[in-house]
């Protein structure tokens, strides 16, 4: 990061710009909606559990979308579920981010052709920041996707 090692020794004062500070705060505590859809949700759970430990990136599952910053669409979104996913997304307070995890959420995955009840890509209902390929993606891939999202947040400018 480079913020803390500057001028920290004497006076507890960090000189930085507001954008960088806000972005740093946001990307370091991305709370996710505790929301699993399909097979990918199991890999998401495995990522949260002991071996891969999502916590170290500041990702903690929250039961309510109103307390969350990101939503990980972990699995197949069906037509019946699409309106519910949209509603969940709308409940998250701004700034909010979406990770589309797995082929199903990206484009319909293996169900793209004959899946009469499968939504062919979650980006048909909500905007997506990071797409993670794989069926299902490995936990490492999910971690990589999260790092990409953090990189995206780091380069944002909100204060102008």
């Amino acid at each position, binding site marked *: 990061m480079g913020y803390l090692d500057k001028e920290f020794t004497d006076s507890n004062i960090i000189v930085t710009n507001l954008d960088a500070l806000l972005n740093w705060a946001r990307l370091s505590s991305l709370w996710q909606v505790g929301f699993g859809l399909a097979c990918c949700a199991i890999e998401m759970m495995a990522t949260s559990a002991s071996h891969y430990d999502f916590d170290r990136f500041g990702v903690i599952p929250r039961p309510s979308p109103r307390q969350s910053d990101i939503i990980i669409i972990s699995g197949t979104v069906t*037509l*019946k579920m*699409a*309106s519910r996913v949209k509603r969940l997304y709308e409940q998250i307070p701004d700034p909010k981010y979406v990770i589309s995890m797995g082929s199903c959420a990206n*484009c*319909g995955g293996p169900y*793209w*052709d004959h899946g*009469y*009840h499968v*939504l*062919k890509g979650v980006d*048909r*209902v909500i905007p997506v920041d990071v797409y993670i390929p794989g069926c299902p993606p490995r936990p490492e891939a999910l971690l990589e996707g999260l790092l990409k999202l953090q990189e995206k947040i780091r380069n944002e400018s909100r204060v102008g």
Partner: protein
Amino acid sequence: MADTEFIKSVTDRFTLLLGEEKASQIVITESPFETFLTVPAELISVVMTELYDNPALGFDSLVLLTGNDEDDAVKTKNDDGSETLTGGNLSVVYHLESLPNRKKIIIKTIVPKANPEVPSVTPLWVSADWQEREAYDMYGIIFTGHPNLIRILMPYDWEFGFPLRKDYQNPEFYQGIKVPY
């Protein structure tokens, strides 16, 4: 499955119960792997009740209820090249099992697509409840006497037909969302 003798004894029982004329409608069908009984839809209630209630048979478990499209509709070509389907049948297959007697039996009933009505077996086996709803959802088979015959897997407001029928066409849009890839 070499249970032909057992199935024969079951049909003999129905001959006693229903009389020669009605019981002749219950046909033993031999397919390469499984032998099953084909029962007309109007006899399903009485046949199932006997299979469930009679302690000598004691079929206390409905393992599986399958809806099926027989795909035997007659295709006729229209002048503009499109095809219309007329007739055709749906079927329901019941896999029953008797846990105490260690016996299995398969019952099949065929109903026309125009009037796909089969009596519900939910009063006998509760496990038929959702399975019948699924068969209705996927094939449009109407189970008369079912307590709550509504769609189960598809959305309740799905009005584009029954998806597992062979002539099903997927809609272009559902609630403003594009459906095909």
